[in-house]
């Protein structure tokens, strides 16, 4: 003979309530992480894209992905590291796709890809050279450089975010800055001569 178990409606409602409470707790926890790491995601994207609207889009996308996988990313350090990587990756992808689009549009319209007057006015000459030099760096060097510059992160913090040894971060930072200096040295001299 089979046992028939009847679930009283009160218990079902309790279960539903507990689920909702867990969801609310999860949302609250995510809100905390959002306040803490949201600006970091935005700044990484902004550092790669150098455009506010695009950076906002990319950071939003990164945070949305983080929210979807938040169950597995509840650890504070892990969340930060994951968000840094995904924001940087999305930003790099955006840059590459916009470059492809630019090449396509250039082929169609045959317009020159020189920076507009507004761009030149908005950034100083040195900053423009620096941006260009940054674009030419390998991704791993660029990320270390960006993270080191954002919010004054120490080498240890950068190493923790990227799950890398401090020595590796140090050497990448050194080579990245040296490469930038090599690219910018001649431009600095030209600017100084004027």
């Amino acid at each position, binding site marked *: 003979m089979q046992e028939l178990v009847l679930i009283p409606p009160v218990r079902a409602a309790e279960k539903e309530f507990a689920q909702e409470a867990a969801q609310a707790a999860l949302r609250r926890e995510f809100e905390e992480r*959002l306040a803490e790491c*949201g600006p970091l995601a*935005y700044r990484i994207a*902004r550092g790669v894209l150098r455009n506010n609207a695009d*950076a906002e889009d990319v950071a939003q996308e990164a*945070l949305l992905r983080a*929210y979807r996988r938040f169950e597995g990313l509840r650890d504070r350090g892990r969340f930060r590291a994951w968000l840094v990587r995904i924001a940087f990756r999305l930003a790099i992808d955006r840059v590459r796709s916009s470059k492809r689009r630019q090449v396509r549009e250039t082929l169609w319209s045959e317009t020159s890809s020189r920076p507009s007057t507004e761009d030149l006015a908005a950034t100083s000459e040195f900053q423009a050279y*620096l*941006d260009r030099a940054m674009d030419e760096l390998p991704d791993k060097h660029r990320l270390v450089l960006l993270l080191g510059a954002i919010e004054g992160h120490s080498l240890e913090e950068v190493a923790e975010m990227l799950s890398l040894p401090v020595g590796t971060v140090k050497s990448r930072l050194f080579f990245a800055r040296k490469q930038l200096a090599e690219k910018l040295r001649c431009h*600095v001299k030209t600017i100084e001569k004027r």
Partner: protein
Amino acid sequence: MPCENYREALIEAAAVDARLSPELRAHLDACTSCRASFVEETQLFAAIDTGLRTAANAEVPPSFFPGVRASLLDDSASRRGWRPFLIFAAAAVAMALTVLITARPRHTIKDNQAKQIFSASPREKTEASAREASGTRAILASSHSYRTPHERNTAPANSASLHVMDVLVPPEEREAFARFITSQPGRSGVVIAVVAAATENQDNRLSVEPLEIAELEVKPLEALASEVPDGTEEEQ
């Protein structure tokens, strides 16, 4: 222009912003050109760091957090909206599969079994004995045995399509019949069956019932003669 020996050391010292080695410090005290170069390098790295910090620490626009929250809400709502639809879709697929399995024709025969000669029914067996007796080797082609894969996967349109059609082909006409069937589109299964000769094994499967003869009674001829009814024996 810095001295060639110290050039790299100067750049590295400016890059890492570390304390200078005593040897390098002594050289800088003595060499004006290297000192000027070192100052330039230090300024360059400082400019790079400032530029990087300026670019990297941009103010977060006020629209950023509300935008993120709105996209999170949208995402949650759209995921909740998909759930009933997914349940409905799964139920529909399960129902369709059930219908498909139950409606599938059960009497499907593989193509390599299409050539069934005289083994189907007692009626065919009797026909076979008759043909054997008349010396005609025949091939029986049943229409339901040669259904194409497409036909097998679809339910029969009407019961007439399952009608068993027997084709009796004498050996001398087999070739001509095969040519005729070849000219008919979509009948390749039949052609295979017609062209292939019936194997001996299949013929051996035929069983001929032994004749049942009633018991014979053998009698001598003399006795027969005495039984002549006209009474001549009595006369002798």
